[in-house]
């Protein structure tokens, strides 16, 4: 059996989860295409706003829509959360990563009995509920049937084995991933339901639509033998900290961040890995979520380096209010590559070594040749009093 977890308007759902005040408001997500801002995705309630439209067009169609920047990072992180949460049921989870529309996750439930399916489906729904994401679940023998079950039912629906053709027959044929030409042809033949399509002869479908059509014909007939393609979770390190009393001072924030960075650096060290992307999330008591994603020029792993980067980032952030939740994410984790020490990138130890060696060399020449400039009375009228040379200290 396979389960399909469907989250409608995924991008809008994620955004509404982060900003509850947006619930019930039509949302339009924008991104830059070239120099122009275009619609990346829109929630269903915008009615007519489509991806690729100009901002003006979208506003004309749905004036009450709220325009937001498409945050793929947030969506990716929500997908990750979902996969992590659902992995308690199975490790075979496939993600259909389409942030523009609905998000589909397929779970391989193995040889699950139909009687247990409902119980498991309810648990899956509860798990999605803990993430504050509204989902519907369909359970069937094949992926397509499970998707249709999830799509056409509010919460949970199970299609028993053998009942697939009967279940699918009245559903619209548009649920199949049809090409434009195929959709047009089916429309011309008056085929609107999956049952009508399934009733066509195999040979006819193959002759008319080719192998792709044959495959879709099998799906429409309830025969979908596709396997789950497991989603590989990219390695990630996360540390979060929540506060009952909002953090209002920079020194306290720095202190908390230092502890979190230390933990992350230790984890990286244990993994012998480095990070190429750091995400800092601050939840303010007044509501807004401040997010900063730092793409690093070179991978970092050392605590001081990460601290320096984050400290610079915090300085640039405009934090207006107390912080109630802090989150640090290290993404794009790559194995630590042993780096050839460049002669001009001296670590502290090397710097100290050179200083010591020079002093030793100076000692060899009895300090007759090695000197250091010492500032004296810089305002003194006599130039020789302003600076003086002194033998290098041993």
């Amino acid at each position: 059996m396979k389960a399909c977890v469907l989250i409608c308007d995924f991008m809008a759902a994620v955004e509404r989860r982060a900003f509850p005040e947006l619930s019930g408001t039509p949302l339009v997500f924008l991104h830059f295409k070239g120099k122009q801002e275009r619609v990346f995705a829109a929630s269903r309630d915008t009615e007519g706003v489509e991806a690729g439209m100009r901002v003006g067009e979208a506003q004309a169609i749905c004036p009450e829509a709220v325009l937001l920047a498409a945050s793929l990072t947030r969506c990716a992180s929500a997908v990750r959360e979902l996969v992590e949460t659902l992995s308690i049921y199975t490790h075979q989870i496939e993600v259909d990563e389409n942030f523009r529309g609905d998000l589909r996750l397929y779970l391989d439930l193995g040889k699950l009995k139909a009687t247990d399916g409902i119980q498991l489906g309810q648990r899956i729904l509860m798990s999605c509920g803990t993430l504050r994401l509204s989902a519907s679940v369909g359970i069937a023998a094949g992926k397509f049937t499970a998707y249709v079950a999830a799509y056409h039912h509010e919460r949970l629906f199970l299609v028993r084995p053998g009942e697939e053709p009967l279940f699918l027959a009245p559903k619209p044929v548009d649920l199949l991933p049809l090409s434009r030409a195929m959709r047009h042809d089916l429309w011309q033949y008056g085929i609107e339901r999956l049952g009508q399509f399934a009733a066509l002869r195999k040979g006819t479908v193959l002759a008319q639509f080719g192998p792709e059509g044959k495959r879709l014909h099998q799906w429409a007939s309830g025969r979908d033998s596709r396997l789950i393609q497991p989603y590989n979770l990219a390695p990630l390190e996360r540390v979060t900290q929540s506060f009952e009393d909002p953090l209002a001072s920079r020194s306290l924030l720095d202190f908390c961040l230092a502890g979190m960075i230390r933990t992350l650096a230790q984890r990286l060290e244990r993994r012998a890995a480095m990070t190429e992307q750091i995400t800092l999330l601050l939840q303010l008591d007044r509501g807004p979520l401040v997010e900063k994603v730092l793409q690093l020029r070179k991978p970092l792993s050392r605590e001081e380096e990460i601290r320096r980067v984050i400290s610079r980032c915090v300085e640039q952030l405009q934090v207006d209010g107390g912080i109630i939740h802090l989150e640090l994410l290290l993404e794009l984790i790559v194995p630590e590559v042993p780096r050839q020490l460049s002669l001009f990138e001296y670590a502290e130890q090397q710097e100290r070594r050179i200083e010591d060696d020079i002093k030793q060399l100076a000692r060899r020449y009895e300090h007759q040749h090695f000197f250091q400039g010492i500032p004296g009375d810089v305002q003194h009228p006599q130039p020789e009093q302003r600076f003086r040379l002194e033998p290098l200290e041993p």
Partner: protein
Amino acid sequence: MFYCTIEQTYYIEIKEFEYGFDKANLILKVSTTIQDVIAELQTRYGPQVVQRLSDFVPSAPQPTSIPDLDTLLGGGLLPGVLTVLQGGVTSGRVTLAQRILAHSPQTISIYIDACSTFDLESATRNGVNLTRIVIVHPGEQLLEILSGLLSLRVPFVVLDESDAKQVTTLPAVLITQLAQAGTVLLQLPPDRQTPLRAGARLMVEKLEWIRCPQSRDIRGCRSRVIVFEQRGVAFGAHVTLDLMLDDR
């Protein structure tokens, strides 16, 4: 540095005699392979005597933090190469050298002041942090001290001989050592003298004084830096720099 060629199957000849080798000793019979010859040479004259060319991989240029100069030099000064900064009196080359020294990222640099003319006050004005440089008055032991510094792999050395009578030509052994150490060595020879074995040569020419519009006091000079020789840079490429007396 020297190089070897196999003239016949049985003989190897060393072309340059910097180490004071006896010529009779240089004609070596090759018994079986070139590795044996190399082993024998290394046994006789030390492991440094024969090295692979791959050991001399050029490092990335060291930025001078003067953007125009870095652009001209294709990134900066070459480590492991003797860079000569030529120029006349008041051309601004000492100022330029001190500016480069001031902005070098290393924590410690060496200024070899061959003529004891290093002015601490002007160096400070040029931005040199006195705690980060060691001034060396080498006297007669210039080459010995320089060799010692190169063996320590000191990252940045300025050899100022701008007021000396005669330029010091570094022996080939020091050039080899320099290449191995990857040190940026900037030599300032006396006016109209050119040391040998420089890997990069830059000429500094003063174009005009820069004066204060009101008092007409000299505030600096406008100098042109011309590349005579530098890896990857066309001969004659140049850039004009304003070297002000007070850079603080």
